[in-house]
């Protein structure tokens, strides 16, 4: 019996070592490319042509200045545009999804059930299906190259609505709404002053996700934003790919890529815990 236990415990230790090895390998794989990116972004074109090393080149600031002042790829402009679209979308999508979820959850009205069923039913329709009509309309009314055209549609985000609805169901006691009514607060004020603060965790998580999604979005913006002062970061990155590559200062190219992903990484470093929690709470409950 004792011997059997010993074998079992050795087996367990071996398995544990194996598991750690696999996980460390995967973590290495996830980080390797970014480490390479950061190192390469600090090396000059000449240094880069000599092959890869793990030692940073010490020209990080030099590349940064070069990338930031490039005349054909105006990355600061792109970052500002991306930020406007991403922040605008994040605010619109979370506020109005919360409002809609609250409207359907708290009030009783004739079309309540229908409204709910409708939103759930359209949740799975891929965004590309509306893209054709959307692009056609945008060009017809001269709304291509307008950033707000990419922001406003995010008011209606079925998946975010669903998340908010689940959250309300789990956390909002209807007594609070009733108490606030007795205090004489109007319905709208109740939502803004009492319900929104309760929903803060859900709003924060969805804000991050929608910000990141809009920041990274390439398909639709690339079809609409054609004038150089309206382009967002992903469009500029794709432009790098189509440019005549051999003439490029590679240090600058790596710096462009780094600038494109850096804002999201910074946010992630600070908020990774709640982001990871949000991954599960959003989709599994269904």
């Amino acid at each position, binding site marked *: 019996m004792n011997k059997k236990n010993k074998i079992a415990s050795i087996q*367990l230790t071996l398995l544990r070592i194996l*598991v750690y090895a*696999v*996980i460390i390998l*995967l*973590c290495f794989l*996830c980080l390797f*490319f970014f480490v390479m*990116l950061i190192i*390469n972004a600090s090396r000059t074109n000449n240094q880069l042509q000599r*092959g*890869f090393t793990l030692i940073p080149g010490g020209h990080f600031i030099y590349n940064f200045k070069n990338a930031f002042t490039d005349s054909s790829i105006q990355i600061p402009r792109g970052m500002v545009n991306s930020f406007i679209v991403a922040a605008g979308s994040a605010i619109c999508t979370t506020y*109005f*999804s919360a409002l*809609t979820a*609250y*409207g359907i959850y708290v*009030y*009783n*009205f*004739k079309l*309540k059930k229908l*409204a709910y069923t409708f*939103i759930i039913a*359209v949740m*799975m329709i*891929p965004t*590309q*299906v*509306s*893209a*054709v*009509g959307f*692009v056609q309309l945008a060009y017809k009314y001269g709304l291509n190259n307008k950033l707000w055209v990419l922001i*406003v549609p995010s*008011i*209606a985000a079925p998946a975010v609505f669903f998340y908010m609805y689940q959250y309300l169901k789990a956390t909002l006691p209807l007594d609070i709404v009733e108490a606030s009514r007795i205090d004489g607060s109007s*319905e709208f004020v109740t939502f803004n002053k009492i319900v929104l603060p309760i929903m803060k965790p859900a709003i924060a998580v969805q804000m991050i996700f929608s910000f*990141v999604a809009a*920041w*990274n979005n*390439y398909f639709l913006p690339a*079809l609409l934003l054609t004038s150089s002062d309206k382009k967002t970061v992903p469009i500029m*990155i*794709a432009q790098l*790919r*189509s440019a005549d*590559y051999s003439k490029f200062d*590679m240090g600058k*190219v790596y710096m462009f*890529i780094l600038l*494109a*992903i850096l804002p*999201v*990484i910074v946010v*992630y470093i600070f908020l990774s*815990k709640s982001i*990871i929690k949000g991954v*599960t709470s959003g989709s*599994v409950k269904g």
Partner: protein
Amino acid sequence: MKDNKPKVKSISYAKWGYIFIIPFFLVYFIFTFYPQVLTFYNSFFENFRDGLTQIGPRFVGFDNYKALLTPSDSGTIDILKYFGNTIIMWIMGAVPQFVIALLLAVFFTNTRLNIKGQGIMKTVIYMPNLIMASAFSMLFYTLFSNVGPIKPLLVQTGIIDQSFDFFFTTISVRGLVATLNFLMWFGNTTILLMAGIQAIDESLFESARLDGASSTRVFFNITMPLLKPIFVYTFITSMIGGLQMFDVPSVLTNAKGTPNRTVMTVIMYLNNYLGGSNNYGMAGAISVILFIVTAILSIIVFKTIDRDKG
């Protein structure tokens, strides 16, 4: 709904329900629903730009669909080829993604193994999911291209030949697309499957262990059956996402799907019609086909989840 007690007299507040949901529905109908209808409508029209001349719009019935499904000179039906490419690249990424995610989820939740440092590990493996796909792909392009740093390393160690070009070989471009998709999604899947396993009643594992069941038996007889709804959900949503694959192959191949259009995906095909010639007719037809395929997959998800619930 059942929480609303009758004494609340919620009926008198009904108009607020409508007021609160109006912005959502208004925006949905103008910016999503109407464009969707237009997409369907367009698919029955000839409507594109040829240089500076506008052709159509002219009603052509199902001609766009016929054109899509007619074999080209070389005998291939383009859209089927692109669906094939998309699915092959999705499978190449999804198989390792789900195998590894499942293994990690089982290991992470195993109390006897008691893996330490899970927080930091989850943080690291989830990170690629948030990285801009186009930038990540551009990074891969710069690293693996002929002037990038990886090729010389592989040539030196004798793994590949000097003449090998990562971006002129079907299997290597598809491999890079799959690798990127794998890296971006396996952490996400791990976290979802972990939550699924953690939702299983711990006492089930305990009693199985007391009965002397081996880990493999516990996995196949308890974990997998109970995890099935969530597993199917993540699998099908991954497939739906896979069908919409665009950023990665597009940036890696400069929107050309090279070599020989073996990396061209359905959405890249759609994008070519939409971006180049504003061919709303053909783009509409492709969208409708994509919509139908996605709808079928979604129904499968809902059916599976419903059955397992009930």
